[in-house]
């Protein structure tokens, strides 16, 4: 049974590592995580959020707010017996974003509460929730409650991670009483070329290691009164094993060039643990711990040989997404029935008057019925009454009274009170017209021009109405009405016995003109809404679109292709994605050797794209992304949400799915490739035998520590190891302990070598530099108030001296 696992990221580095873990899992299994695994991250910087994979994001965020620090400090002074580690208020106020690199502020974030809530309780609830979810899943699957393992991952250079990592250890043990293992994976800064300017990072890391050493000593006790009122009093280390990794290698091989590369390797390590190597590691680690061969500190080396199928799919999906967005935002051309055509405003303008007539007609028709009464029939009856002489008074005055704006019991009043019906019909008609344009052409510009032309046609219609004496002003209408009424009494065609029909017709004409007069105001509102968007107008089933809507859609769609720089640098765009993938592929310091059937990433991407176009057609369509969904509704919905992020994910997910369905990138047998050209593969496997940490002590291979190769097929792993053996590389043994089969781990072979039995406070090769950064105030600090004591306090968060 797979062990239920909770991975908790602390601080920004924790989040980035979790993202990589989630990514690796998604690449391999198509889901973000197994059901019995939970990702949590605890962060003090509100702007840091997880990006997710194309199928979404399963990393749960626990925001620990540091707003109003002074109040938080005061609160803890009263409720927790004024713990000595609390930062002083003046120091806290200068922290800036998040914990501001001050360890005590990070710890304060975990303990404190403010207007955003009680951070401590929130963290406990999040861990309890994750615990409940992972154990419930395992109960369902096996009817046997599995004890969970927890990994805490983060960096010890900032304020958050270095501040809370020890509390987190004890807190997790307190919440999860039946915990199987609690591991820490913490990132350390690499060996500095010069420490100047990086004193905070190195000082924090040193302070954190020092504190950890203190609590790992069985002579020392963790003794705190927690904010929930619980007096925690525990002897023993916070973690079973803490693994440290950095961008350095112990054997002098060049370091991983970027911090992103280190997150990737940490993410790969955590992914492998949830994918299946955890149990294998644990077997060995239990033996090693029993024989005192590992201690409380560990590290590891990790390298892989990979055919980057996922990156190829992602890059091509990003290219296809850009192609589709370019179609949507092309101002000159659109596609109809697969053929490219020019957007001609003249053509749109030509068809629009007729369309507007239909829209107006539908609105006017809607006004003919008020509360079930057909007003036209009623007018016909009135006409017959007039002709029969059944009315009192003058005919002209009678007709005027039927339609005058001055009365509240006539047709004018009935229609005026019901004018909303016409407005709804106009709005729905215009919406449908624009919607049809967008649906047929998939061009935002075409739809925008359609809407623009509708407003122009409304303007022209107004001019015509004005020319025949109609306006929205009641006074004008009453004057016009008098003339119309007089006209009704002339030439009645009684001689040809058509006087009834003629009068009915004339009264109906007056009624139509009255509807026009009453519709001018709502139509003006509609025109203003479309052009300026000042008023919000909704029809029966749709909100009237504005020109601004299309401008926003075009602008934002362009932004996620990377055409303009309006999006925040943290926002993912397709161009950024492509650049990141290319950067990752080109990073030769990363211990991942990329192999391809054609020996070129670019060629593989082109092949994949060609296959996609061949099987899926050369014109991209929104139906590939949203299926039968309405395009305008979809885009408007995305605009209300987080447009760039939602659209990015939907497009990428859709094209990736289609690429998989069309099998555009076939799996590649990495093992066979290694057998054919073992040279580069051996050099990458050798890198795995050197841990990601520069220590002075030689960490000799030990049979009791995990050291194995993992891939999708155990026979293929054996083949690889035999090939290596023939080339005189015997870093990994072809034995049961030296191999781990993970059937779904296609296109990659991973080499893992775990090390232990060292003490970072003594063995880290640059620990003296870190100690110096911890103990001494750097020269020339901008803040003159920072003296030696305050500097040291900022680098400390636990009372361990």
């Amino acid at each position, binding site marked *: 049974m797979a062990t239920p696992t909770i991975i908790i990221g602390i601080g920004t580095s924790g989040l980035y590592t979790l993202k990589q873990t989630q990514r690796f899992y998604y690449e391999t299994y198509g889901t973000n995580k197994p059901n019995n695994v939970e990702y949590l991250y605890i962060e003090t910087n509100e702007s840091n959020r997880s990006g997710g994979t194309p199928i979404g994001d399963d990393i749960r965020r626990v925001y620990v707010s540091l707003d109003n620090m002074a109040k938080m400090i005061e609160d803890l002074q009263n409720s927790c017996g004024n713990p000595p580690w609390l930062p002083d208020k003046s120091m806290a106020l200068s922290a800036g974003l998040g914990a501001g690199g001050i360890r005590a502020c990070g710890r304060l974030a975990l303990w404190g509460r403010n207007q955003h809530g009680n951070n401590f309780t929130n963290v406990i609830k999040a861990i309890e929730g994750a615990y409940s979810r992972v154990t419930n899943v395992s109960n369902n699957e096996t009817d046997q409650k599995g004890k969970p393992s927890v990994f805490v991952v983060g960096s010890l250079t900032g304020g958050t991670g270095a501040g809370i990592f020890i509390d987190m250890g004890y807190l997790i043990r307190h919440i999860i009483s039946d915990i199987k293992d609690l591991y820490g994976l913490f990132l350390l800064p690499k060996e500095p070329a010069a420490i100047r300017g990086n004193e905070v990072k190195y000082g924090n890391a040193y302070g954190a290691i020092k504190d950890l050493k203190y609590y790992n000593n069985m002579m020392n006790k963790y003794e705190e009164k927690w904010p929930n009122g619980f007096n925690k009093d525990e002897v023993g280390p916070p973690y079973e094993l803490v693994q440290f990794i950095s961008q350095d290698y112990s054997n002098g091989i060049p370091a991983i060039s970027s911090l992103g590369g280190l997150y990737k390797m940490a993410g790969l390590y955590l992914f492998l643990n949830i994918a299946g190597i955890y149990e294998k590691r644990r077997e060995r680690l239990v033996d090693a711990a029993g024989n005192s061969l590992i201690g409380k500190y560990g590290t590891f080396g990790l390298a892989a040989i990979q055919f980057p199928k996922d990156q190829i799919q992602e890059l091509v999906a990003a290219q296809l997404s850009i192609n589709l967005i370019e179609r949507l935002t092309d101002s000159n051309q659109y596609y109809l029935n697969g053929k490219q055509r020019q957007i001609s405003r003249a053509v749109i303008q030509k068809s629009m008057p007729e369309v507007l007539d239909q829209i107006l007609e539908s609105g006017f028709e809607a006004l003919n019925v008020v509360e079930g009464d057909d007003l036209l029939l009623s007018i016909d009856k009135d006409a017959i009454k007039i002709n029969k002489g059944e009315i009192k008074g003058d005919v002209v005055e009678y007709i005027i009274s039927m339609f005058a704006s001055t009365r509240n019991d006539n047709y004018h009043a009935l229609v005026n009170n019901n004018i909303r019906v016409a407005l709804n019909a106009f709005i729905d008609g215009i919406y449908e017209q624009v919607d049809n344009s967008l649906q047929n052409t998939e061009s935002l510009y075409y739809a925008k021009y359609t809407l623009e032309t509708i407003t122009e046609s409304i303007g022209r219609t107004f001019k015509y109405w004005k020319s025949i004496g109609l306006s929205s002003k009641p006074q004008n209408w009453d004057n016009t009405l008098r*003339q119309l009424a007089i006209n009704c009494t002339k030439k009645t065609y009684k001689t*040809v016995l*058509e006087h009834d029909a003629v009068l009915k017709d004339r009264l109906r*004409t007056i009624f139509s003109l009255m509807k026009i007069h009453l519709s001018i105001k709502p139509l003006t509102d509609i025109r203003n809404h479309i052009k300026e968007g000042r008023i919000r107008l909704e029809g029966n089933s749709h909100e009237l679109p504005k020109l601004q809507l299309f401008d926003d859609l075009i602008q934002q769609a362009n932004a996620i292709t990377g055409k303009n720089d309006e999006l925040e640098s943290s926002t993912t765009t397709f161009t950024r994605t492509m650049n990141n993938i290319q950067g990752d592929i080109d990073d030769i310091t990363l211990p991942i050797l990329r192999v391809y059937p054609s020996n070129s990433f670019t060629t593989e991407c082109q092949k994949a794209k060609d296959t996609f176009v061949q099987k899926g057609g050369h014109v991209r369509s929104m139906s590939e992304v949203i299926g039968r969904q309405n395009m305008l509704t979809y885009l408007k919905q995305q605009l209300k949400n987080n447009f760039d992020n939602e659209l990015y994910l939907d497009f990428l997910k859709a094209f990736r799915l289609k690429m998989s369905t069309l099998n555009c990138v076939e799996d590649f047998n990495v093992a066979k490739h290694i057998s054919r050209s073992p040279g580069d593969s051996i050099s990458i496997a050798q890198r795995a035998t050197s841990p990601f940490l520069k220590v002075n002590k030689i960490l000799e291979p030990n049979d009791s520590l995990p050291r194995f190769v993992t891939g999708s097929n155990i026979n293929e792993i054996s083949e690889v190891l035999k090939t290596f053996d023939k080339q005189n590389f015997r870093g990994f043994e072809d034995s049961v302990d030296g191999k781990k089969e993970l059937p779904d781990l296609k296109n990659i072979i991973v080499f893992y070598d775990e090390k232990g039995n060292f003490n970072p406070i003594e063995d880290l090769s640059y620990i003296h530099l870190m100690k110096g950064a911890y103990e001494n105030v750097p020269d020339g600090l901008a803040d003159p108030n920072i003296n030696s004591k305050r500097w040291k306090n900022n680098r400390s968060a636990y009372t361990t001296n």
Partner: protein
Amino acid sequence: MENLFFNTTYSSMQDTLLKIAVFLLIAGLFIWLIHLVFSKLLFRKNKQRKEVHLRLAFLWAITGCILLFNSYVLILLYRNGLDNLQWTSVQFYLGILPQLVTYTALIVFFFMRRSAFKKIIHQPSIL
């Protein structure tokens, strides 16, 4: 009656004026009758305003009346014999003055109504 419709001999101005009045009256009667029939039969499915139908029907009624008058003139010529008609004599023209006046009046009336009808259709007016 035969004298009234088929005699082309001029007798007196008083008779001629009387004949003109009778001819115009009959033409008017025919126009009304045809208009009455056409107003019920023509343009029933047309979606234009009723007044437009009736005015159009009226034009057709005048046209119908002119056609009927043409038929009458043919019969008149046939009955009198083309060879017997004194085309160069003023007396002859005075004798057929009622027919000439009616014919001209019908055509002029047609174009007057047509002009009014066109005005209604083309002018941007609701009155």
